[in-house]
């Protein structure tokens, strides 16, 4: 049985992350000389038979070094060069003018030092997959020349609570020049991640952006059936009725069976043969929100149960620790129990009826 559940290309706006502030102030990711700007990052995530596939494309301009931190939902088994037209073909299917780029997601660990679990080079990109908590990953990034914006500690912690896996990508402008890469050339990166819990990070898109800055992204899902998501998107008519001054968040632009020609085109790209050739549902979501309001990720349930997890969307605190023993949950339950007991005692003292 086909078990394709999720295919998520995201074209978004890491752009704000890198150009909204002075070079030394902005985030994370720009080199000290500030000579390199991220023009666009485009990403795709796919889920098939328990394996998530991310295909991310970075486009840069300049000749220095540049980097990006990407949270992942699990430990990748390999990181390879992505296909040549998958992202473009998906965008072409739903929108003639692709924009931006993307991000991903992950969970938490609290080791003092981040552990490097995978390193590779793809064209002009140096890719390092890290395992660690927010502090250790942030420390690693700082020690390796990443300039994190002031909101990075909180955002890293937001992701590390759900997955301790992050991918650091550094762009070497001089190597790109040696390889004949021109400004605007994208380098797709394909990350293969076995996981039982695919989700799409959105909050990372607002990293380093002023609260009022617009964040725009395009999210595509390809699933076996019509998926349920959290947050629940609104329709394009509802969005347009809100007025230009209101940014609605998530807008459902397209929900339909994927066309045979689209699937055939995607399957013919490098590394995409795992994609089923039929019976795939295409969903196109548009993110349009102020950075300060983008405090969530996108949880997806493509199983048909219709129950996307609030925790996966970053809407509920994570209740279990890395060992799965769930002390936080037990503490919470104990506190609730204590309040119930105290409340009951107080009620008995005052003689008020229970309600």
């Amino acid at each position, binding site marked *: 049985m086909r078990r394709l559940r999720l295919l998520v290309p995201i074209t978004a706006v890491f752009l704000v992350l890198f150009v909204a502030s002075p070079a030394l102030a902005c985030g994370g990711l720009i080199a000290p000389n500030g000579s390199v700007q991220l023009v666009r990052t485009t990403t795709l995530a796919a889920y098939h038979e328990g394996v998530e596939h991310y295909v991310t494309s970075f486009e840069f301009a300049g000749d220095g070094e540049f980097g990006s931190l990407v949270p992942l939902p699990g430990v990748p088994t390999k990181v390879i060069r992505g296909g040549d037209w998958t992202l473009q073909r998906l965008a072409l299917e739903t929108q003639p003018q692709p924009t931006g780029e993307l991000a991903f997601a992950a969970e938490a660990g*609290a080791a003092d030092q981040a552990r490097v679990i995978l390193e590779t080079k793809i064209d002009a990109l140096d890719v390092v997959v890290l395992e660690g908590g927010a502090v*250790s990953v*942030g420390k690693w*990034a*700082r020690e390796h020349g990443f300039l*994190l914006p*002031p909101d990075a*500690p909180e955002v890293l912690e937001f992701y590390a609570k759900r997955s301790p896996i992050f991918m650091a990508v550094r762009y070497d402008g001089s190597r790109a020049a040696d390889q004949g890469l021109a400004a605007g050339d994208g380098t797709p990166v394909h990350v293969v991640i076995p996981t039982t819990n695919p989700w799409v990070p959105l909050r990372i898109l607002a990293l*380093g952006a*002023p609260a009022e800055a617009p964040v725009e992204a395009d999210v595509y899902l390809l699933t076996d059936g019509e998926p349920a998501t959290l947050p629940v998107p609104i329709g394009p008519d509802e969005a347009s009725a809100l007025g230009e001054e209101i940014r609605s968040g998530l807008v459902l632009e397209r929900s339909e069976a994927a066309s045979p020609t689209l699937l055939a085109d995607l399957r013919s790209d490098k590394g995409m043969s795992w994609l089923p050739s039929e019976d795939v549902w295409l969903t196109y979501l548009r993110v349009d929100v102020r950075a300060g309001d983008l405090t969530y990720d996108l949880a997806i349930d493509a199983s048909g149960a219709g129950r996307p997890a609030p925790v996966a969307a970053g809407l509920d605190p994570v209740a279990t620790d890395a060992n799965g023993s769930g002390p936080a949950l037990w503490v919470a339950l104990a506190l609730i129990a204590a309040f119930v007991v105290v409340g009951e005692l107080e009620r008995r003292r005052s003689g008020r009826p229970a309600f």
Partner: protein
Amino acid sequence: MRGLRVFGAALLLGAAAACAPAQADPAGPRTIEIWLHHSRFESSTIQADAGETLRFVIVNTDPIDHEFIVGDDAVQELHEVGTEAHHDPRPGEVTVIAGETVMTTYTLGEQDLLFGCHVPGHWAYGMRGVVLVG
């Protein structure tokens, strides 16, 4: 981790007390402990007396560097447009490396002062507070 940092801060406080020179006030300068977390000062208002000397102990729990600068509007403006990546220790002006705890001492005048972080973008992000004198 936080426990270790608290312990480190306690050690620093103890060392500072042990090394403090004799002063008119036998108790020495009052110590103000300030925690930096998620690029925010956990306490943004400090009450003090005119002419009082304060010993600030700044604990940075973040994985990024911060600063702690005490001074009036002119001092804050100077640092906001300045180019020093790190500050040599000066009274009321100190860089706080990620995960570290530092100390600085400052004697107040008659005016209220500001304190904050001028790592690019941090002041605008809200990393600032006020010392109310009087």
